[in-house]
């Protein structure tokens, strides 16, 4: 068949009629437009658009580099555009910059180098956010395939960051263990912590829903005064000599065994299932650190469908405990805090308890909404647990996820008369607690 094709061809022919000889050229300014049309109604928005250009560039750079960083941490597939931009010709070694990622949301810049060859992956990252906010970390990972794959990881880490301490106990101002200085009214101190750490872990999937991880680490901490703390320096709020771990550097080894049973189909979409994680560990002081302690904890969560399988109610309970061996008190940085609590609570003690109730439901493909109530407290022993010291947080948010994993979440939590804005982007941590990285 050789028929002509409709009036579209006739229109196309007008180019030959009214135009001039045809030409072919690379695709740049095909229209030959030297100046765009200007309309007074659009001039204001055009000016505003220009003024917002730096903000758009910042969003672009931040999210692009952050997503790339998170993707590469978890050994996910490196998309070709990233590989082309950043990686060597054979795609084995890549270096790329990061922003607002390495040391948190404070202004910081960093860089990562990733090596990925077959089943071996290595990342090296550095971040600088100021004199007291910088880090360097190296991770190596080998994945061994087989009937039940297992992963061997070794890491080296250095960080210098600002921290805070409000004393031990559920009511620190009344707890006799806290050596507050009597000549000042403040009850919360700021400090700078330098940490060096080496971790080796071996994780294995024992069965379809069961994972086991054995890990060992060596960590050295040093506490210094923060020059930005003003009146809230550690030495002005507390008698540093009476706070274990505040005066001299601490060095310890930590060995842990973690077991996780997770029957959910995936960690992205709201799906029913059960989760139980437990760990037991031993921390041994080395060099001048006198005290040893054990750790034990668990998290139990149930993901219960409410009428629909995409509406999930999940009660959760997380208990985290450190058990001193002997009479020496645990260091204040080894004490447990309710890390899963989404409100404001800086209390620490031997045992932390966080109970939550989340309701999560799918609202669109890849998007879920969440309402939650958290409660937390700390206690020196289970016998001393006082539910009257519970603190609460309520809130809600929106999660973004793929079909297999969570991508990011935004939430607002109301707690202690204030609102806390929570934003996380990128892949969630592999397990709860993650004591080795505290």
């Amino acid at each position, binding site marked *: *068949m*050789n*028929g*002509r*094709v*409709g*009036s*579209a061809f006739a*229109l*196309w022919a*007008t*180019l030959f*009629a*009214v*135009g*001039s000889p*045809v*030409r*072919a*050229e*690379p*695709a740049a300014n*095909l*229209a*030959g*437009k*030297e*100046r*765009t*049309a*200007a*309309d*007074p109604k*659009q001039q204001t*928005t*055009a000016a505003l658009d220009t003024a*917002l250009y730096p903000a*758009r560039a910042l969003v672009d750079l931040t999210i692009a580099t952050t*997503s790339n960083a998170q*993707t590469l941490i978890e050994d996910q*597939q490196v998309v*070709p*555009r990233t590989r*082309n931009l950043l990686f060597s010709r054979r*795609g084995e070694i890549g270096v790329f910059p990061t922003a607002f990622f390495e040391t948190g949301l404070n202004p910081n810049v960093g860089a990562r180098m990733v090596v990925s060859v077959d089943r071996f992956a290595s990342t090296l990252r550095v971040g600088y956010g100021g004199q007291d906010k910088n880090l360097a970390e190296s991770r190596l990972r080998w994945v061994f395939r087989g009937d039940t794959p297992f992963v061997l990881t070794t890491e080296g880490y250095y960080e210098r960051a600002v921290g805070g301490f409000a004393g031990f106990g559920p009511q620190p101002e009344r707890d006799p263990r806290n050596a507050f200085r009597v000549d000042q009214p403040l009850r919360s101190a700021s400090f700078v912590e330098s940490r060096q750490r080496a971790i080796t872990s071996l994780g294995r999937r024992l069965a379809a829903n069961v994972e086991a991880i054995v890990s060992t680490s060596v960590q050295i901490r040093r506490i210094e005064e923060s020059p930005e703390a003003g009146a809230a320096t550690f030495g002005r709020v507390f008698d540093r000599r009476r706070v274990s771990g505040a005066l001299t550097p601490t060095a310890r080894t930590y060995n842990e065994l973690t077991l996780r049973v997770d029957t959910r189909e995936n960690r992205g979409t709201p799906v029913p299932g059960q989760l139980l994680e437990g760990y037991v560990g031993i921390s041994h002081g080395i060099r001048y650190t006198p005290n040893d302690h054990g750790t034990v904890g668990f998290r139990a969560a149930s993901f219960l469908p409410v*009428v*629909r399988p*995409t*509406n999930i109610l999940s009660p959760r309970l997380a208990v985290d405990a450190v058990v001193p061996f002997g009479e020496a008190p645990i260091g204040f940085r080894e004490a447990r805090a309710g890390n899963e609590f989404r409100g404001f609570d800086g209390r620490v003690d031997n045992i932390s308890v966080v109970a939550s109730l989340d*309701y999560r*439901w*799918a*609202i*669109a493909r*890849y998007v879920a909404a969440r*309402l939650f109530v958290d409660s937390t407290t700390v206690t020196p022993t289970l016998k001393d647990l006082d539910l009257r010291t519970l603190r609460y947080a309520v809130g809600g948010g929106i999660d*973004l996820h*793929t079909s297999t*994993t969570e991508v990011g979440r935004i939430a607002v939590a109301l707690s202690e008369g204030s609102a806390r804005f929570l934003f996380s*982007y990128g892949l969630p941590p592999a397990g709860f607690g993650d004591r080795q990285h505290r």
Partner: protein
Amino acid sequence: MTNRISCSLALALALGSTGCRYRPARFADHPAVVKVGDDLPIPVPDRNDFDELLHVSDVYLRRPLFDALSPAEPPEAADVNAFDEVPVSSWYAPPRQLSEILADHDAPLGGPPVAPLVLLDDAPTLGSSSGGLTVVDARGARYELEHDDARRPELRTGAAAVGSRALRGLGIRTPDVWIVELAPGDIELSRPSGAPEPLAEDARARARAREKRLVAFFDGGPKLPPNQGRHRVSATRWAAGIDVGITPDFGSRGDDANDLIAHNDRRTLRALSLFGSFLAFDGFGVRRTRDVYVGEPGKGHLVHYVVGLDRSLGAGSVVDPLPPYRPLSGRRGESTWQNLVLLGFAPAPRPKATQRRYLSLGTIGPLANPLGMDTALPYGPFVRLSRADGYWAAKRIAGLLSPASTLEAIVDAGQFGDRAARDELLLLLRLRARQIVGHWFHQVTPIEVLTTEDTRLVLRDEAIFGGYAPAEEIVYELAYLDGEGRALAPPWTLQAQSHTLVLDVPKTIVDPKRSAVLHIRASRRGHPAPAFCDVHLAFYVGGVRAYAVTHLPR
């Protein structure tokens, strides 16, 4: 102090000089580009596979934030020439003969597969369902075979054949799809010659797997009456080169030196929204696009395809049989806000069973969404569909309707055994096309330049020409403007008499030393079109010629 006042005054004058009136665009007076030279040799790019994690975060996080910080209107398409048309390129291949649409060509590896066919181990990459086969024919051409569901003979194979040709008729590259009749014995299980010999045990295992797949393939589809041994199958020729993965829907490919325009600023990709709506293309997304490297490695370039047309014509959204309706089942309600507010208890939409009067037709009706098709994941170019883009897409769709034999030939490629189904499909496509075309022809002033004769301009109103608006309802407001938007003559209005508009440019305006802009806005029943048409004119002694046309909103 004096300098500061001078600068402020200059700024105020500059703003004031243009701040109160419209100022037309300025174009270089060059021949219009009709073909883009984006076929320069490049190395074979890396394969770009779909990464759900990065894509979801990009689509739902980065782009909305980016767009929220962009108050200006999205930019006009960047792949258009001075006449607001899209030149021929690796992205756009408008057919000039019907044979190009129907793939009746004599290319070395063109046409349906040639026996004998040999089954390959590779799984098909284009089909929407699992269970397809990949074969290589006697010439070494590779085809992906798909069959229909037993309950719906001719549905998906017909959709693939018709949809691919229709989209090709609109200028978008699609794979060649052929309807063939095959029996299991037509496909050999042996390995293609030249392949390395595997280990014996491995070879036996692969042979068993191939045989199993072959049996499952032919068992799964409907059998052709009256010959129960043969099956109707669609054979998609893929790929005529190296498939390097999906076409990114945002930005451009960094490893393609020919790719100079951000994909979300390409009119051809923006127009897919309307092409897909016209064809009831269900399930379109970035995974239904492909880049193919053609030519010898190192000497070739990329061309860009849309694939997966077996889901067009409503074939991808068939509900048959109708599942029992449970309002609070696992299916979510359609409205995101409803789901949010009702905490996930918004009643699920009641499904509607697909008609069974014509088994070879899917969920396709006479009403198309003129604003474009829905996609499961936002598709970058669709977000930026402008009035000019929609108008261009409408012209392409309108081109398929005339002559009538074009669309008939396209539909006949589906080889529907039921004549009534074929006629029904033809009618539905025409109705859907007119709906979309009618909508977008009224979003602009649909004026095109037909020709110039000395100082006379001959223009055509596409809406009147196509029968989408009666001439008596159309009034034009016209003005000749200079480059700064100042009127060169008093504006005037003109009642349309027919689809042709003949204007004699006043002698006072004809001046070879300057250019002018004919600024036209159509009004229909007193309502002005949202966009006007600017025809950019250059003059020579005793004559005028048009060198650019725009259709812009105001």
